[in-house]
């Protein structure tokens, strides 16, 4: 177990190094001037002199590898630096925005799982019937809908005509604000999960051990809940981690439309302004989160799947 964790952490090092180097490089070769961006006035233009000073002060006049190494050195000491644009501490900004994104992601994940898993199970059990078709079609519909389109339509319906939900904003932590963005973000996720759940449930239902469970005379609900459910959740859980990236992607658009002060928005704006410390910090953070989530997935996978606890063929 400990060895497993250590190995995971060690594997993280090359990935993170690569990620940071690649992103540093990409941003560097793209056109645009960081220093100018940092000092660009809302009316247009930036003060030349201030720009030069800023460049020197932030070490942007140095060759790229020096900049990279300097940054790495600081990161190794736990210092992610400060945003060029707002002077905000990068770690502060990440924690602040990630809270909002996480809230959104978790709520939409919960909503979608609550719908998708039962729906997937029902579709599988009613395999080949009209119910299955209906569920399947709904799911396909869900993944096929552009989410920004869906967002506007929902705003019009729920906020303008029915006036039951606020149209946007973060609110002061009250739940009504999160419903529309969470549903928008969750629709695609729910659809993907439902399809996966259905497929894996169908697969499990074909297995001999389900037949064996029926042979014992178990009532159908026990056959499903005790014998089929856990097995069929295995691929769903595995995908959950990878799909978290999907949520993050979606959150960029959803956060923009619903003015949700999240990480997605932060990253987009920092990419566009070449805010090196912020981009690097965010990417590093996301990579770590990604690895952590997949680590958690592996653990829950091991919980669900006793085989993995001991060995896999290599």
């Amino acid at each position, binding site marked *: 177990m400990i060895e497993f964790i250590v190995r995971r952490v060690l594997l993280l090092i090359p990935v993170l190094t690569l990620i940071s180097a690649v992103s540093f490089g990409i941003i560097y070769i793209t056109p645009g001037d960081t220093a100018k961006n940092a000092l660009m006035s809302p009316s247009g233009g930036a003060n030349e002199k201030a720009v030069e000073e800023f460049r020197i002060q932030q070490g942007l006049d140095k060759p790229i590898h020096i900049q990279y190494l300097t940054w790495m050195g600081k990161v190794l000491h736990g210092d992610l630096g400060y945003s060029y644009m707002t002077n905000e501490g990068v770690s502060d900004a990440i924690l602040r925005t990630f809270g909002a994104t996480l809230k959104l992601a978790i709520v939409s994940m919960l909503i979608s799982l609550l719908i998708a898993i039962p729906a997937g199970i029902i579709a599988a059990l009613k395999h080949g019937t009209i119910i299955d078709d209906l569920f399947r079609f709904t799911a396909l519909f869900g993944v096929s809908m552009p989410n920004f389109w869906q967002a506007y339509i929902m705003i019009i319906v729920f906020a303008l005509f029915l006036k039951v939900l606020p149209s946007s904003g973060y609110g002061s932590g009250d739940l009504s604000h999160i419903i529309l963005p969470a549903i928008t973000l969750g629709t695609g996720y729910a659809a993907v999960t439902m399809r996966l759940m259905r497929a894996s449930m169908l697969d499990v239902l074909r297995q001999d051990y389900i037949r064996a469970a029926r*042979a014992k*005379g178990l009532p159908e609900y026990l056959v499903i809940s005790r014998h089929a459910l856990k*097995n069929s959740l295995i691929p769903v859980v595995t995908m959950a981690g990878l799909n978290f990236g999907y949520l993050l992607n979606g959150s960029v658009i959803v956060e923009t439309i619903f003015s949700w002060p999240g990480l997605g928005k932060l990253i987009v704006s920092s990419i566009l302004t070449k805010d090196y410390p912020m981009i690097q910090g965010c990417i590093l953070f996301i990579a770590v989160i990604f690895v952590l989530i997949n680590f958690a997935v592996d653990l829950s996978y091991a919980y669900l799947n006793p085989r993995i606890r001991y060995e896999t063929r290599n």
Partner: protein
Amino acid sequence: MFENLLNVSDLHVRFPTDVGLVNAINGVDLSINSGDIMGLIGESGCGKSVLGLAITRLLQEDAIVNGRINYRGDELHALDKKTMRQIRGKDIGIILQNPGTSLNPVIPIGKQIAEPLVIHQRMKRFAAMDKAVSLLERVKIREPEKRAKEYPHQFSGGMKERALIAMSLANESEFIIADEPTKGLDVTVKKNIVKLLKEIANKKTMLIITHDLAVAEDVCDNIGVMYAGEIVEIAPVERMFSEQLHPYTKGFFESLPARGLKPIKGNSPSLIDLPEGCRFHSRCDHCTERCKKEHPPMIEHEGRHVRCFLYA
């Protein structure tokens, strides 16, 4: 006790597939008396497992089943699902063909064995677990307490097979169907399981499906031989081993290594386009014109049954 515990008559099972209807079972008549151990042998793919599954109503949903299966006076295929469920596991136990896939990989073995006890006998969980451990002990698994907590992948093939047997023993079902309980096991483990089956056979009625003639001879009272979805010969075990009537059975026994490894010529027929007449005619040395056209009925010959015009 009932004389005729199980009575199968004119059973047909067909499967719809991409290429056509597969006629897996074509008119099987079979009755098993209480306390009898019936062995079922025959070529691979002739429908033995399907028969076992049809009796317990565990075939996949799209299978087309016709005919009657009567168990203790109940028409099994006419029962509602709930009653069938109570019969299954409680009255009829089945040991599925493939031990590797018939155990749920994510549930500890002991729990899987205890499950029917909780359901059918309303045992408390702990009591059921204790019983499961004692069943594992009974099927000669060492350190049963520890093993009961393990998962299927931690068991060897032979141990899984024994766990399946333990599971079917759990409910003291009176009728047990065992589908190739010794398949793919090495000699030493096989011996174990044969011994176990014999022990069980003392008290129960059984239908044992097997490829292994030695096992059949060792355990069974009667032997049925299947070919292309029908039973071609039934006889008490001693008589079957001393003399085979049907040309297929003969050929089958001749192929044993001990008898000189002489295979039957030709290939088994397609189950989609069943051959006309006797299903074995194209491979038979005694084939006549009649065999090519007319499907032979079950014929009684010297107190045994055989489906061949030779004995008409």
